[in-house]
């Protein structure tokens, strides 16, 4: 979809919460280039600003200063509506917890981004769905609701949902934070497979070295700056 070798980049990215004495400088001017077709881990301790960085990259939060460009588009020029549509067309998300809507089945959750965009599930989309579901090994779980799935299965459904619309980047925010080591290894393996086998770009935020070890590149954030 984009010819740029960069999936995303930031220049002077700054994010300040609050004002005056109580202001918190979460990001203090980050310059970062994220290459396409790779699995990048953003690492840092709690409060380092790594989650804020991801939120700004993904258009979930708007920076105080600086620029963010994702898939060749400058995010700061978009209003909320344009950002939302950009997200559903170009980005995929996997969160630490609460990834799935409780009242929908796993299958419905996976197809949700397509439905929100008002897209018909055509043959191509159906093929992609089957491929993703096959890669993640959740074919026998599609009729279950999230409450009936284990934590690892829920995360796999979330990854499937993130991949189904063929996004330019998949953002994963501590995707293994709530999982035991075995399930975590499985999920990270799937993320890496999706980069290798499906050609996706994955950006993962984590504080665990073991998780970062699965990534192709690692960016470390400390005190709102790239370390």
């Amino acid at each position, binding site marked *: 979809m984009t010819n740029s070798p960069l999936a995303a980049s930031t220049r002077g990215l700054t994010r300040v919460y609050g004002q005056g004495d109580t202001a918190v400088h979460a990001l203090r001017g980050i310059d970062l280039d994220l290459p396409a077709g790779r699995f990048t881990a953003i690492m840092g301790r709690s409060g380092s600003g790594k*989650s804020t960085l991801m939120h700004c990259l993904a258009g*979930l939060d708007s920076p105080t200063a600086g620029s963010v460009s994702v898939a060749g588009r400058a995010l700061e020029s978009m209003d909320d509506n344009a950002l939302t549509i950009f*997200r559903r067309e170009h980005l995929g*998300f996997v969160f630490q917890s609460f990834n799935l809507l*409780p*009242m929908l089945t796993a299958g419905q959750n996976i197809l949700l981004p397509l439905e*929100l965009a008002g897209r018909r599930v055509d043959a191509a989309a159906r093929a992609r769905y089957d491929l993703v579901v096959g890669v993640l090994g959740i074919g026998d779980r599609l009729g279950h609701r999230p409450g009936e799935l284990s934590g690892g299965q829920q995360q796999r459904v979330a990854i499937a949902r993130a991949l189904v619309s063929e996004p330019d980047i998949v953002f994963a925010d501590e995707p293994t934070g709530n999982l035991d080591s075995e399930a975590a290894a499985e999920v990270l393996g799937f993320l890496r497979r999706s980069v290798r086998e499906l050609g996706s770009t994955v950006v993962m935020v984590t504080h665990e070295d073991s998780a970062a070890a699965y990534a192709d590149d690692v960016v470390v954030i400390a005190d709102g700056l790239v370390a």
Partner: protein
Amino acid sequence: MRTVLRASLRTHTRRYVSAALAVVIGVTFIVVTSLLSSAARAGLVAGVEQQYRGADVVITEVDARDAARIVADATDTGDAAAVIGWTPQQVRVDGRLFDPRAGVGGIAEDPGLRWQELREGRFPEQPGEVVADRNAVKGKDVHVGDTVEVGTLEGTVVGLVDTPSASAGADFYLLWDDLRAVDEDLWVDSVAYAGPGSASLDLPRGATVQPRDEFVEELQAELTNEVNVLAILLLVFASIALFVSALVIANTFSILFAQRARDFALLRCVGATRRQVLRSVRVEALALGAAASLLGLAFGTALGYLLVALATSALPSGSMGVPTPSPRWYAGAFVTGLLVTLVAAWLPTRRVVRVGPLAALRPDDSTSVHTGAGRLRVLAGLATVLLGAVLLALSIQGNSPGLMVLGGAAAFTGVLLLGPVIVPALIRVAGGLGGRVAGAPARLAAENAVRNPRRTAATTASLLVGVTLTTAVLVALASSRSAVDRDLDRDHPIDVALTATDEPLPSDLLDRVRAVPGVGTAVALDGVSARVEGAGELPAVTPGEVGAVVHGSPAIATPGPREIWLPSDDVSRSRVTVQVGERSVELRVSSGESWGDAAIVAPETLAALTDATQPWAVWVRADDADPEDLAGDLDALAQPAGANLTNGLRERSWVTLQLDILTGTVVALLGIAVVIALIGIGNTLGLSVLERRREHALLRALGLTRRQLRATLAAEAVLLSVVATVLGSVIGVTFAWVSLQALVEAAVDQAPLVLPWGQLVLVVLVAGVAGLLSSLLPARRAARTTPATGLSLD
């Protein structure tokens, strides 16, 4: 626990707003009822003694003849007597028709017994002098010095007066002799008598004499009683509103406590006993009830005084007095509000203490709580519906209102019990339809609306109550309207009849009548002036092609060959001889009074009586016209032709207006319950939004636009309200049908069910729009959450 209680009141106040609002409205309703009825009572009672101020005794249970004798006797002995009586008369002012049926009352000659208050001109002294009520003639171009015709009396307006009493007001007042001359048999309410002769009155049998104070007291008590009956009727609607409030409050508490289950569990973990937790939440409910009831008292007082002020400026003077806040009503309203809150909170608070301490340690799953209908509940629901149906069937068979109310209550309770099964099923169907049109938001909305069936059912229950009652009333009134219409067709088959008196009508009158705006069809009736035995000289007419003019198919349109229809007043025998010149026939008498002062005979009878027929009457079918305007226009034509007007349209539109007012009032009063229910829907939605913040954030992250999110919530509210409304309409129509079968069928032989489709569709539309409105605030709040902040919540 006090710290916890205070903190939780502080934190959760905003979430209680809707529940509080429901109580506030209910209590306001009661207080307004009390103030309005006290003002109406004061207004009705206030002027009453005015009429008897100068009297020593009051004589009642007398007719006009007795009253005349009492007045004559009083004049002989030097005492004073004033008749309080009333007669409807056609009144013209300066040759214009003022009112074909104006209220005409008496004014005493003796200044001590005169109760009207002079505003302009002077009181009547001579025969033929008339005073008019200032408010009745306001804006109608009536002035002192105008000539006035009251019935047969010709006179002059010499003054304008105010009437202090709403219960005895008339439009025009005449001196007794004039009044008696206008109508010998006027209706006499009472005679006020002043003078020493009052001790030894020579009265007809059956008349009652009472000292003035005693009489006034009794009258006031009677009027108070009438107002009290009205107040009780209003309270019935107030209790419906309060019942709906209770449903809303119970639902609010259920939702809030479900959301706070983890807080309660944590409290239990750190050592709070069950009893402590229970007491803490009950005190919360108590505080809410007390605060809301107090607010209700304040609002009710303000609104009550405002309404009385509005009524005073809009209605004739004296109909509304000064409202008196009654401590008993206020206490009652406060206690009711408090009790409703406590009772409504009882079950939800009991559920709170079932939460074990361990619940705090489990992950928060309040959004995935799936409350369903237990098997017991479904069985109980089915059994109650069945019982209700059997009772309703029995009530139809036995025409028993008691069984009907019982059966209706049972069936409705059953439906409420089955709500968690029925309502979600209906929402799925409606949501499926909506999803095809509105896409993802509608489908999400349907899923959201049914994810918690018991909550959904409880939310819709309140609206169901209001809508069921409203539609039942609308359908029942529409159906009885058809029965009333039949009666009207029978009693007033002709809208307006112009009947000649001494001479036949001019031949061009028919064309001029047809040219009057508002006249649909008009036909002339041929006839002849005939001498009817026992009734004197009377036009005898025969109805020709009157089918298009009369309502229904009345007997007078097709008189039998040996039959004569005479005005009821003229009938004293069953057979009469009718004579025209030399010819005469003997006819069988039927009587009625819907066509004016004429005899109706068959064409062959008329042919037997005369060879030369002329138009003697014109019958008019109105075309959606204002009865007074039409009567005025037609009278202007009839008057120079020497014809009299019989106005059936007036009665017809009066009855229709009464039914419209009744329908409007009942619907407006039930509307309060519906408003509370809609607040409840907004409330449930608002609370759901709070617990779905993370879901909404997730959806926004995944690409749901703000507009789509708002649409989702709006669709959920509309689904809830429309499904409740449609279900309520179906139940309401059923109830109306049963009540027609059980009650009305017993009174009249046929009472077909009439569905006012326009009104029913309107109810559903209004509910849909109101549902949409109720979603506005929650939807705004939900859309404000940015995806990032929503996701970082825990």
